[in-house]
């Protein structure tokens, strides 16, 4: 028996504009609304809308045997409402099939877990409420920003009432073990689902690469790889960015055809099925406990935090941002608090990563700035403006 568990990450940050030293004190508009609208509309039409249509169709054609899960960030949902509300409608239609599970994460796709547990909890609750309001769905499984994970997070998530959590099936934590089983975190009685990065990346990274030995990848070939797991594993967790479909891998390279044909090919083998994370946890018992004291993530080769807080400028910017926490919250100024939280979105720190100067160009592709230093300068200038706003805010203003 092999179950396929799809989870798609849907996220769009509020990208900062180039905020100059000359804007400090005179402009409190930090975000590039025009660019955000442009990107959101483009990705919606290239990816979210067509992919949702196909998945809705697949669920109906398979009589509900095809199942998927999503984690949609609060900032993405806000931008859908602003710029492309039909995306929300299409997720609502998916939700109504009962074959779709929504996961929780931080509303702002932030690194708050690493810097402020208090803030982290607030953002998780905000997200939970948002998903409840929009989809009448109460998530029971959690995934943290960029699959950042350690033992401590698992305990915290357990305390907050979730019964499962997602993480990267990184080699250095698994060793000889396979990611194709359900595990249990140390010191938390919840389920732990690990990403099968080989098969996930075959779709999300390598699909369109003509130099890859698996190229071209069609649904029957992928289904045969899935069948090979039969007998030495019971679940394959395919976790990836939803933008894989149509944005990172292009439609004309056949990514949508691949998706269209995959369920049929996988279900050809009667032992295979599709599950959502919650169903996986019901169906399979944990085979072992995994002790992961050091933080892991799904990023880059290192599978660590170095993409967001690996260099000096990243650490500096994050430090100054979270130093403002008490003052910002004490202000009870809704706009200030919202701006501060939008700045916490992990992408803002990813743009400051200097690793890619040496290895690979993935970061560069996703970077709206010419250079990581430009991202740092904009954010630090914004934080200077923040300090001014906090100082001049009328004292007596209440909620």
């Amino acid at each position: 028996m092999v179950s396929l568990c799809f989870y798609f990450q849907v996220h769009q940050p509020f990208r900062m504009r180039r905020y100059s030293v000359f804007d400090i004190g005179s402009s409190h508009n930090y975000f590039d609304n025009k660019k955000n609208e442009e990107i959101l509309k483009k990705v919606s039409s290239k990816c979210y809308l067509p992919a949702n249509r196909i998945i809705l169709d697949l669920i109906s054609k398979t009589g509900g045997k095809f199942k998927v899960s999503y984690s949609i960030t609060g900032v993405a949902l806000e931008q859908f409402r602003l710029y492309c509300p039909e995306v929300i409608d299409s997720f609502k239609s998916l939700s109504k099939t009962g074959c779709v599970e929504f996961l929780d994460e931080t509303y702002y796709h932030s690194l708050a877990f690493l810097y402020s547990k208090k803030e982290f909890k607030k953002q998780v609750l905000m997200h939970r409420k948002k998903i409840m309001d929009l989809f009448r769905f109460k998530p029971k499984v959690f995934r943290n920003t960029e699959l950042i994970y350690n033992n401590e997070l698992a305990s915290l998530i357990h305390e907050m009432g979730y019964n499962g959590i997602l993480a990267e099936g990184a080699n250095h934590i698994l060793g000889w073990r396979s990611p194709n089983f359900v595990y249990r975190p140390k010191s938390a009685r919840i389920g732990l689902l690990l990403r099968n990065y080989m098969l996930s990346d075959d779709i999300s990274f390598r699909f369109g690469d003509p130099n890859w030995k698996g190229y071209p990848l069609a649904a029957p070939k992928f289904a045969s790889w899935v069948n090979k797991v039969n007998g030495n594993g019971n679940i394959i967790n395919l976790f990836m960015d939803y933008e894989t479909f149509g944005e990172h891998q292009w439609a004309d390279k056949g990514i949508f055809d691949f998706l269209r044909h995959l369920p049929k090919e996988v279900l050809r083998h009667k032992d295979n099925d599709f599950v959502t994370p919650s169903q996986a946890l019901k169906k399979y018992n944990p085979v072992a406990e995994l002790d992961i004291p050091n933080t892991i993530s799904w990023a880059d080769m290192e599978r660590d935090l170095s993409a967001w807080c690996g260099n000096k400028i990243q650490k500096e910017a994050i430090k100054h941002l979270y130093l403002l926490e008490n003052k910002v919250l004490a202000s009870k100024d809704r706009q200030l608090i919202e701006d501060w939280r939008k700045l916490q979105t992990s992408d803002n720190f990813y743009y400051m990563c200097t690793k890619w100067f040496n290895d690979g160009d993935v970061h560069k592709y996703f970077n709206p700035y010419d250079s990581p230093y430009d991202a740092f300068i904009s954010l630090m200038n914004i934080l200077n403006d923040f300090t001014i706003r906090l100082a001049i805010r009328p004292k007596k203003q209440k909620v």
Partner: protein
Amino acid sequence: MNVLMFGWEFPPISSGGLGTACYGLTKGLSKSDVKITFVLPYAGDMKSDFLKLVSANVKVEKIKSPLMPYMTQTEYEKIRGSQPHSIYGSTLFEEVERYTKAAAGIAKKEKFDIIHCHDWMTYGAGIEAKKMSKKPMVVHVHATEFDRTGNHSANPYIYNAEKRGMWFADSVIAVSNFTKDKVVYHYGVNPDKVHVVHNSIDFNEASDNKAPEIRQHKKIVLFLGRITLQKGPDYFLSAAKKALAIDPNILFIIAGSGDMERYVIEKAAELSISDKVLFAGFLKGDDVEKAYKMADLYIMPSVSEPFGLTALEAIKCNTPVIISKQSGVSEVVQHCLKVDFWDVDELANKILAVLRYRQLKNSLQEDASSEIKKFSWDDPAKKCIEIYNNLVGG
């Protein structure tokens, strides 16, 4: 392999990128199995043979001439004027032609497999040598007339000399992709024969000097280069004005000389920032390094910079740099800040950011230093040898 090279005197006699590049490249080449006859103009006050110090593989042939790289007609007249009955040509161009003839004389008695010339004043000499010897010729483009004039009012004589050299050459070496594009676009050279060989620097730990006294009171932002249209000193001033409006505790230092010197001094007065803009004059030898070390930040706002070795020299002195995107060096250095030369708001923004945000300055210093540690003149030398081999072998 024997190379007949027409080049320029080395620092500290000659200052500027061209002399430095000739020196670095010759040093790199002489480590391999390449023998160089290096022909250069000299004005007679040269005390020691720098080339002799380089390697036994290098033989020097001097031609008495006051020519200097990027000399203008006015500058030439000033120097020649002090020697009324001299053998030198009465105009710059006449002198270049006289130099060319003298160089041809040297070419006649030398044995070589390939000719390599550096920038337009030597192209004529290279062409003569090629005609006589039927040996392949390489021209090395360190700058074009379009760079020197900031993309307008190119001197037609110089343009023609450049174009003729590039067309006669069997291969053209450009110091950056930025320059290759110009060679192809403005001079109509077949891109297949233009090879990009980036300049480099030999990294050695800079001596650990203490920060000078002045740094304790003021933050120092440095411009170092010829004060000419090409180098963008006026953009430096405009950005200074904007940055000073926010942080008056900055001192802007302009080191160098050139035909825009008076204009820049007057402009500083007009912007009423004369008390914050100091002119250090033309710096030589150790003073150059001292200036880099004194600065908190080095700016190279060039309008059109084929390479920009000063950026690497500043980094070597552990000074963060802001360079214009219109430069060749921006193709090889990542850990620096880059701006469009005309975007003075952004330049001021970045100046203030480096001076305000300590970790930004630290990162730029450390990461750029470790970035250029990998650099060496051996790499461009290797690429030149490959180009030689392709021409001689074929």
